[in-house]
Structures are given as structure tokens and as C-alpha cells.
């Protein structure tokens, strides 16, 4: 969205290369910056920003909605990947351990699972059932859908980091194959969110010739 030239590289040890232990991170010259917040700050310091045109109240709103996405969508995604037995057994373990030889693939997968479960317990999600998590996702999507309304982006004509964040999560939910479709169905209930993802995908990704899988509309 900022028109910056990037090269995407996939590495198995990406989490270890990152200074904070989290992906994604960008490598620019001799600097390494990880996670969305710091990357946005870094890019802003270099003179590119999507949210300069917003007033203080709008900036507050934007930050609040970004936290909502982190609080609900991100946590729900982690829950589904690591705390739902069916998904863990069939998909996550295999996928997470795939770059490593035996027995490292099992050990690392279990370690990550243990870490995620600890975190869930600390924030009070340890006792949630899958249905409750899906309900939370639905509430979050409803809030996003209401905020977006009929506008093309969350702050009308121009996309901001909030649009990037929401796109990232919704697109992943819609296009990742899981054991059941319940999660993506929750998002599909909101047609303006679907249209939003489609619009961004077409505008920013397909035009550049990066042929990623397009969103399935059932």
C-alpha cells in the first residue's frame, strides 16, 4: 500500500532470526525490525506513512480497532491452530515441524503448543470452548463490518495500516484450509468484509503479477 519494493523470503528459522522472536520482520540494510507496530514506525521514520492524514480522534479509533483485531482475531487464530485438538493433530503439528528432521519436528511443535497454551491460560482463554471462540470471532467481524459500512476502506478513500492488518487476518482465515470451515464461514457472513478483501487482493496483489490463491466464494 505504501508502494515500497519488497522481496518476500521464506525461512524455516525465521522466528529465531527475528529480534523479538516474532515474524514477520524486515531486513533493510543493516537494520532488522520485527512485528507490524515497529515496522510501521520504521517506515514512517523513513518518510512513508498511510495515517498522516488522520486527525487525533481518528488515530485513536484506528489504534483501538487494530487492538481489537489483535485481541480477538489473532488470539482466535492461535487458539484454533494450537488448542483445538483436531486441527493440531491433523494440520498444525505437521506443518510447523515440516522443515525439520525427526525428532526435532515433534519437539519444536510440542514446545510451541505448550507456549501457546500457557499464554491462553494467562489471558483467560484457557477454559474457552471452540464455540465460544467462534462467537468471539463473529462479534469481532460484526464490529469490523459495522465500522467499514459501505466505504472502500476503513477511513474512507485511503487505506491505512488498519486496512492492511484486517486484510492480513481475514485473507488468511478465508484461504487457509482447516479441518472445518466454521471459521471462514463466520467471516463470509459479512459481505462487505468479503468485498473488502477481494478489492485489496485485486488492487495490490494481482496487479503486480503475484498470483496467490484467490478467495473462494462459495
Amino acid at each position, binding site marked *: 500500500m505504501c508502494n515500497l519494493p519488497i522481496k518476500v523470503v521464506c525461512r524455516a528459522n525465521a522466528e529465531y532470526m527475528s529480534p523479538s522472536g*516474532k515474524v514477520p520482520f524486515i531486513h533493510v540494510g543493516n537494520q532488522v525490525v520485527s512485528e507490524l507496530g515497529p515496522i510501521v514506525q520504521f517506515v514512517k521514520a523513513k518518510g512513508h506513512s498511510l495515517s498522516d492524514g488522520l486527525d487525533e480522534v481518528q488515530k485513536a*479509533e484506528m489504534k483501538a480497532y487494530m*487492538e*481489537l483485531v489483535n*485481541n480477538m482475531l489473532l488470539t482466535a487464530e492461535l487458539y484454533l491452530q494450537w488448542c483445538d485438538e483436531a486441527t493440531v493433530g491433523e494440520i498444525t503439528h505437521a506443518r510447523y515441524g515440516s522443515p525439520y528432521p525427526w525428532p526435532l519436528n515433534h519437539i519444536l511443535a510440542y514446545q510451541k503448543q505448550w507456549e501457546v497454551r500457557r499464554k491462553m491460560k494467562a489471558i483467560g482463554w484457557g477454559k474457552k470452548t471452540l464455540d465460544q471462540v467462534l462467537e468471539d470471532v463473529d462479534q469481532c467481524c460484526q464490529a469490523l463490518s*459495522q465500522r467499514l459500512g459501505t466505504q472502500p476502506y476503513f477511513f474512507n478513500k485511503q487505506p491505512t495500516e488498519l486496512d492492511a492488518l484486517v486484510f492480513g487476518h481475514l485473507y488468511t482465515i478465508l484461504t487457509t484450509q482447516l479441518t472445518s470451515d466454521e471459521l471462514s464461514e463466520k467471516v463470509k457472513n459479512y459481505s462487505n468484509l468479503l468485498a473488502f478483501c477481494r478489492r485489496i487482493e485485486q488492487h495490490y496483489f494481482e496487479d503486480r503479477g503475484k498470483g496467490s490463491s484467490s478467495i473462494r466464494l462459495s
Partner: protein
Amino acid sequence: MAAPLELSCWGGGWGLPSVHSESLVVMAYAKFSGAPLKVNVIDNTWRGSRGDVPILTTEDNIVSQPAKILNFLRKQKYNADYELSARQGADTLAYIALLEEKLLPAVLHTFWVENDNYFTVTKPWFASRIPFPLSLILPGRMSKGALNRILLTRGEPPLYHLQEVEAQIYRDAKECLNLLSHRLGTSQFFFGDMPSTLDAYVFGFLAPLYKVRFPKVQLQEHLKQLSNLCRFCDDILNSYFRHSLGDG
């Protein structure tokens, strides 16, 4: 609606009906929505439970956690948000998420992790309201729980030193307070003239930070500079809690 609603929660002090954020959120919401709550303050007898407070008890239900309690009250027709538009409802969710992600870690730290504060204020206060010998164990457990939550949600322990995490969470909290102040502006409440769920949450998180006397007060000092937020807390205390100022 005739069934008595009883709320078990931590007591008050320093001019507040409760010093515990979550208890305060529920008490404020009940006042705003007109729900008749009988408040049972936890004391150092063995009556009543201590874990997972605040807890709402009715004839057939026991509900814990502020979000669930507020939902329950709404279903009982005590709804402080019925005048809000759908968009304002969405904004409420977003701002509550902001409070929990950005402000709560620093509030937890100020009360439970910062050593001077914990040992001189928090621990003695809570220990005096818990029966012996639980008073020797429970505050320590609450403190560890708070530290755990901060470390687990703010980066992975082996890579982050506690001091770096501390600096970051206070930076985030100050930014959050600034954002809230901008959003509130000169209005009396966050959505016009009537208080709603969001006002209850903001009040619940801010009031203890504002009023409790701590030795280490960097976040409190920052809050005191945001006069509209202080006025917001004082207004709610004066209008809704004048008759129920807690014990010191």
C-alpha cells in the same frame, strides 16, 4: 428482575467503592444501567469465595468475569447501551480491546509487580481482607499471575529482559491514556450525555490508578496531566457513588 442480584467483589478505599478494576467496572455498569445490586465486600472471614472475583450470584446463576456479567445484566434488561448506534457498539468493542492490550499490563505492573508499590500498598491491603492463612498465599499468587500475564503477552521471556518489557508497557499505557483523552475531548461521557459500557470500563481501569496512593507513581503522574480523564473519573464518583464510599 425481582430476583436479588448479589455481587461479591473487593472493597474500596481512597475514595473508591472498590480498588479492584474488574469489580469497579461491574459496579459502575450496574449504576449506569440501574441494576439493583447488593454488594458483598470480601472481608477476612471465611464467608464467600475469593477466586475469580467479581462474581454475580442470583437465585439460579453464578456468573464470573466482567464481560459475562455485563452480558447477563443486559439479558435481564439492564442495558446501558440501548441508545448506541451499531457503529458506536463496534467502537465500544474496539476501545475495550485497546484498554486490555495497552493499559492493563501497566496497571497490573503498577499494582502487583513494582516492588515498592506491591509490598507497601497492594499486599497489605489485600492481605488484610483475606483470612489467615490464605492471606499469606493469595496475594503472592495474584502477583505471580500478573507478572505471568505481562511476560506472556508482551514477548517471549528468554528474549526479553523484564526491564525492556517494563519500559515498553509504560510507553504503551501512556499512549493509550493520551488516545483516550483525545477521544473523550470535552464530552461528559464517551458517547454523548449518557454513560455506557465503555464508560464503565474506562472508569474501572482509570479510577484505581488515579486515586490509590503509591510510592512509585509514573503512570499516575501522566494520568493526572490529562485533566479531562481525571474530571471524567471524579464526575462518575460524585454522581453515582456518593453514598457508598468504601472503607479506608
